[in-house]
């Protein structure tokens, strides 16, 4: 319960930050991808400047026994995934976190992108082999 509240509050700050940064506007993201405005680097850099030391130095979360380990896989399947993500991002200027926040700014057309995202997740889960192997 308390943990859920912390996630919700963190998500609210996260979403407000995305709205303030303009990353909720696909046009602004596309202007980064076409090198017209490198602002996205500052958003990511600013976020990492706060998050990296938190991840690095916090030993004991307040409501959990230990931090969850970070796990990411590098194999042909995950790389194909990032390539597909890149093509989709380049076509639309939309990525998941920013798309959810964008819906909060009243951007109704973004619901089409969100619908596409859930459909893509569904198709990926049904058509492709269940999961990336855990060992590579």
């Amino acid at each position, binding site marked *: 319960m308390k943990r859920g509240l912390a996630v919700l509050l963190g998500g609210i700050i996260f*979403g407000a930050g995305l709205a303030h940064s303009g990353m909720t506007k696909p046009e602004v993201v596309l202007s980064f991808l076409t090198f017209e405005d490198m602002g996205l680097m500052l958003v990511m850099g600013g976020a990492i400047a706060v*998050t990296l030391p938190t*991840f690095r130095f916090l030993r004991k979360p307040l409501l959990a026994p230990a931090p969850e380990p970070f796990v990411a896989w590098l194999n042909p399947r995950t790389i194909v995934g990032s390539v597909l*993500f890149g093509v989709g991002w380049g076509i639309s200027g939309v990525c*998941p976190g920013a798309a959810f926040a964008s819906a909060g700014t009243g*951007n109704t*057309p973004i619901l089409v992108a969100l619908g596409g995202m859930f459909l893509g997740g569904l198709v990926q889960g049904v058509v492709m082999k269940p999961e990336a192997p855990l060992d590579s």
Partner: protein
Amino acid sequence: MDEWITRLFPHGISTYLVGGLLVGLGTSLIFVFTGIRAGASGVLTSAFSYVTSRSSFGLLKGERAWRTLLTLGLIAGAALYTLAIGEPFRTEIPLLNLAAGGFLVGMGTRAARGCTSGHGICGLSSLSGPSLVHVCTFMGIAMLTAYVVGRLT
């Protein structure tokens, strides 16, 4: 120096920096309380565990509660911001681009097990080599795609 900054950031730097710091603050707050490194795309898997028992969606079943709350928080945070100080926004990106792009983003981030927040913010903040490769891959491909799409339209 100033001219150089203006060229890279024609709309200034402070809005981006402040927004980024807030994003980092939200991510850090979640981590400080729960130990979770929260990425946004996992909900594209976990949400389906509410409606199907298929194993490929059950993978994140244990995380579906917080992933749903994170998603609601992202929407609510941007909505509260917009009501308080921001302005409502409506994109001019064609619906076909949003639909096709969204579909590929959904497939891709699920297969890659992470997106701009999962591999980008959380992965890089965890100094993860695999995440760095993913970020360089999807960002590079996105730049190439945006260039090609810009040429074609």
